[in-house]
């Protein structure tokens, strides 16, 4: 696959479950290879889910060399990196034929706004169908190429994505405000402008 960017992320707690990050344009091709390669044969996508990563400042230690009193010495500096918020779709792949796994495949969106997308892997593994719908429903990731992308658990007409970390549950637990003045006023506070992109902070 020319041009594919693949990155391996280490997992400190469970080292054998490290994950593979593929860029979005090559995801379907990479998934097809994972499924069809005779040595991998990852024919079974067990678990599909989303993760919401907020904007975050990550501290990292960097070694720097500096001149002190005319002598070059090594210092350890702590620099702050800003990790922009994004959403992730995570796939756990196994092989039913060769009985090995899991391989963790991650696709990442650009940011956390309302219109974010990753390619759908339902054409590769049918088991992603309902699970991608669930991720779309609860996280708001649009799966480009999904045959039937609708909300799975929340009702049609529901606006928000409840599994996002910045979701605020309404006071009356009804999307449609009941026609009482105080409840209506409180509900308005939570739904100020539906068109404003979420997580834009």
């Amino acid at each position, binding site marked *: 696959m020319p041009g594919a*960017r693949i990155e391996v992320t280490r*997992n*400190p*707690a*469970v080292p054998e*479950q490290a*994950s593979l990050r593929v*860029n*979005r*344009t090559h995801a379907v091709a990479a998934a097809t290879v994972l499924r069809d390669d005779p040595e991998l044969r990852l*024919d*079974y*996508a*067990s*678990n599909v*889910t989303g*993760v919401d990563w907020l904007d975050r400042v990550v501290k990292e230690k960097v070694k720097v060399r500096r001149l002190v009193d005319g002598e070059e010495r090594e210092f350890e500096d702590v620099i702050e*990196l800003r*990790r*922009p918020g*994004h959403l992730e779709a*995570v796939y*756990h792949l196994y092989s*039913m034929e060769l*009985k090995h796994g*899991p391989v*963790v495949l991650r696709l990442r969106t*650009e*940011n956390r706004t309302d219109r974010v*997308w990753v*390619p759908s892997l339902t054409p590769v*593994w*049918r*088991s992603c*169908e*309902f*699970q991608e719908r669930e991720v*779309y429903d*609860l996280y708001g990731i*649009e*799966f*480009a*190429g*999904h045959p*039937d*992308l*609708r*909300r*799975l*658990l*929340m*009702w*049609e007409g529901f606006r928000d994505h*409840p*599994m996002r970390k910045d*979701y605020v549950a309404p006071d009356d637990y009804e999307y449609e405000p009941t026609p009482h003045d105080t409840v209506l006023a409180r509900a308005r506070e939570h739904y100020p402008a539906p068109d404003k992109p979420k997580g834009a902070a």
Partner: protein
Amino acid sequence: MIMERDPVPVDLPMGSEGPGYELLAKPGADGETDLLEVAMGPHHPSTHGVFRMDVVLDGERVVKLKPVFGYLHRNHEKIAEGATYLSSMPYTDRLDYFCSMTNNWAYALTVEKLAGLRVPERAEYLRVILAELTRLQNHVCLVGFLVQDMGASGTPLMYAFREREKILDLFESLSGSRMMCNFMRFGGCRCDLPPGWVEAAQRVVDHYPRFLDEFERFLSGNEILMARTQGVGRLTRELAVSAGVTGPMLRAAGVNYDLRKVDRYGIYDRFQFRVPLGEHGDTYDRYMIRVLEMRESVGILRQALRDLPEGPVLDPKSRLRGFKPPAGEVYGRIEAPKGELGFYLISEGGTMPYRYRVRPPSLINLTILEDLCRGHLVADVVVILGSVDIVLGEVDR
């Protein structure tokens, strides 16, 4: 880290909030027959809970079927992300409320994998015993419901419930609750067995094959059952694998994939048992697989009750309160009675998980419901759904 920016491909259709859900076909130009759209559920006795199937019928044949979920959705995952690790344990009971013991085990196993905890020998045996008892009562109820759905009102179901009640009595004397057991802990089990429990369990297990023989004598060769199930809802191997179908449904389609053999989690490598496989993948095979699995479970139970060692049931060093697993992520899974029950946890080193996900076997086994039902009669839809074995507490979470 510089974020990549991929251009949005033009040829991929984007999903939207739009309707996209026009079930009933517009009347065709040829105008042959009218199609009828029927909502089966959410309050329909055959759906085993609040679940709806939107069915399009041509006469009595199913043309299309779309399952509709979410009536029991309470966002278990969100709640668990705002709670400590241990306080999600009782909530896992409510997922598949028939099998709280295996739900507990799947969650405990995942957290143990994340934190690197060890489980004492006696607790491992206890877990196997409880999981296999759960499998017995789940499968027997499933068969009872399936036969009930075919119109045998009550009697076989009551026979099944009579046996289930004996197992639930064992659970109650052990954990204090028949169904919401909340029994497993990270690094073992909550408490040791009460006196006389092993003997009582032994009596239940010894009686079980006799009950199964009796049950099978009435059902397995029953003409009505065979006519209603054989050749109905056939599932092919390829579709089953691709659609991620797990558990008895997968093995009824002839795929040899049992996590007790594949992953050998816990101490399942110490027991002798066979994995029954189906040949046709139809509803009758799915019925038969459950009966055969119960017989194998009885075998595992006999071995486990015989070998049950003495010792502690909870690692004395395990800290339940203020429990903080190291940062990282983990996916753990077990063979629950309904299929592969998995938990996916992301820890950032705090007392609460950053991400908590349940992989529900019932939901994913429903992916192929439309493929199974297409072309069959409405009455067969009820039977096919009955053989999938769903619990809505787990489907909707």
